[in-house]
Structures are given as C-alpha cells and as structure tokens.
C-alpha cells in the first residue's frame, strides 16, 4: 500500500475527530442556550398571562373516588331538584368545557379537574366553605365529578355531593337547563 494512499485517510479521520469535537461543544453550548431561553420565555409568559399557573403543584394527594368518600357523598336527582328550586346549593359542571357551553344545568358553574388549579382560586372567594356544592358530569361512573368532589373536599369544602348519573337523569327529568359560557361567579351564586 502506498503511503500517499494512507495519509489522506489518517488526516481525514483526524479532521473528523476535530470537527465532531467542535460540533459536540457547539451542540452542548447551544442546548444550554435553548434550555435557558425556553425557561426565560416560559417564566415570563406565565407571570404575564392572566391565568398564571403557580410554580408548585397544589394537589396534596391522589384523587379519591367517590366510593371512597362514603355513601353520603351521593345525591339523587330527586333530592337535588328541590335544592335547585330553592337555590340551596351551588351546581358545578365537571364535564369538559366544550360540553358545558353546549348545555348545562341552569346557573351551574364550569369547573373541570384539568382547569382546577387556575379556576379554583377564582371560585373559592365566591363560594363559602360551608355551602352545599353539587357536582355533576355524565356517564354512570361519574369519574369526573367524583374526582372534582375529592379535590373540593381536600380544599375544605365539607358539604360536597356527587349527583348520581347527573347530567343524563337531569335531562331525562326535563329539569331546567341552559346553553352558553360560564356565567360570572357573582351572578351564579346561590344562597346556601
């Protein structure tokens, strides 16, 4: 093998090595810059936006299913309807907000587990801790309303009920419903 044929390969490999080392240093420094830039953007936007998220996650423990809260957490539509008529309870719709906008129990507020962190702060000043709150969603398992009821119980609301097969039975009994966006909390307030 001639030396002329071998030498360029050796130089090539050295060149590759140098070039790749330079690229790795460049990659690491750029990665650090990207991370810092993303962090700065994220923090700035989060502080600036109206519904900013706290930096510390607020859920104290995992969501409890309604079954673990005891039997007295459930309320039937027959029991809830008179409370609704006499304005003795706050109704909270735990379904996704898109479904809420289509139709919901008249005067109900929209609050989902997903929006809980941002919406709860607005809500807690308007609903006294001793108020009766009836949470509903659709479906037999009432997963969303159970989860939300668990969150509210953890936050000190002691009088929370889950409406059994809430939305479906409310509709079936032709009780009052309305369409539209979330009413302001002041308007929606019902005396407890």
């Amino acid at each position, binding site marked *: 093998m001639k030396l002329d044929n071998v030498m360029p390969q050796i130089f090539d490999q050295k060149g590759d090595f140098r070039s790749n080392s330079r690229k790795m240093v460049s990659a690491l420094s750029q990665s650090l810059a990207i*991370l810092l830039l993303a962090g700065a953007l994220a923090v700035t936007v989060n502080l600036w936006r109206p519904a900013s998220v706290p930096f510390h996650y607020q859920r104290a423990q995992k969501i409890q299913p309604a079954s673990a809260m005891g039997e007295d957490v459930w309320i039937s539509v027959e029991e809830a309807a008179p409370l609704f008529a006499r304005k003795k309870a706050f109704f909270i719709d735990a379904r996704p907000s898109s479904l809420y906008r289509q139709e919901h129990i008249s005067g109900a507020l929209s609050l989902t587990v997903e929006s809980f962190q941002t919406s709860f702060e607005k809500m807690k000043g308007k609903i006294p801790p001793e108020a009766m709150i009836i949470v509903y969603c659709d479906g037999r398992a009432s997963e969303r309303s159970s989860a939300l009821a668990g969150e509210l119980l953890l936050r000190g609301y002691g009088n929370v009920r889950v409406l059994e097969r809430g939305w479906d039975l409310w509709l079936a009994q032709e009780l009052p419903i309305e369409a539209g966006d979330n009413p302001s909390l002041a308007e929606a307030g019902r005396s407890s």
Partner: protein
Amino acid sequence: MEVFGAARKPAPGKGRGLGKWLSFGARLFLGLVFVYASIDKILHPAAFAETVYNYQILPNLLINVTAIVLPWLEFLIGSLLILGLWMPGAVFTCNALLLLFFATVLFNMARGLDIDCGCFTASTDPSSGGHMLWYLFRDGFFLLLGLNLFYVTFFPSRSGVAAMQA
C-alpha cells in the same frame, strides 16, 4: 454562520441527493411536530400539569415547572429545526427529548400504567386508554427520524449529506 461539512465534500453518488432530501424532510417534519405539539400545552399549562401528574414519575415540586417550561422548549426546538438554525443544539435537544418521551412511555408500559399520553393536547381524558403500544410505535418512529438527523448533523461526511447550518 458556519456551515458544518462544507469543507469536506462527500463522494458523489446517486444516494446523496435522495439522502439530503430525506434528511431535509425529517427536519421539517420533526420541526412541525414539535411546534404543533407545543401549542395546546402553551395555551393550557394547568391542564398539561395534570397530564404530567398522571405519568406519576416526577415529584410534585417539578410537575408545574415541567408543565410550564417543556412546551416552550418543544416550541423553540421545533422552530429551530424548521428554520435550520443552531442545528447541532436543536438536533441534540430534540433527540434528548424524543429519547425521554420514548423511555417514559416504555417505563409506564412496563409497570402496567395505561394513561392518556397528552403528547399533542394539554387535556387528558380519564376514560381513554389502551393506546400505549401506539404511543410507543409513534414515539419510536419520531426517534428514528431524530437519530437520522443526528447522524447527518454530526457525521455529514459518513452519511454523504453535507451542510447542516449551525
């Protein structure tokens, strides 16, 4: 702006043009995927925090910080990939994230958790499930594209595809 690989011209060949276009396509595709995936999460950080919580991997202290910063990181990486800027850094962090996502899905599958991945939307559906294999396949495909970009960016002379902008 430096152009990596420009000094070392690869040997001419039929595959070079095709490889270049494939890498260009992978770069644009991954860039768009990252930007698209970030939008809903940037708009709804609180909902995304619930998704991060559902993964049951991070301590509470890091859940909201991750939910706030990660979408912006995805957005930045996606934008850089689309624009072809800071390629070594963008490709490196892109691969690091893809590897992390793939490992996270694999880890949760291994311990029997079946969750909504929340990869492209901030909100989770508690009733959804049974898609873990699909998530793994999809993330694996993205990772393959990312590794291709990595190879092309860091070994242009071997891959036969030159000139990724730095």
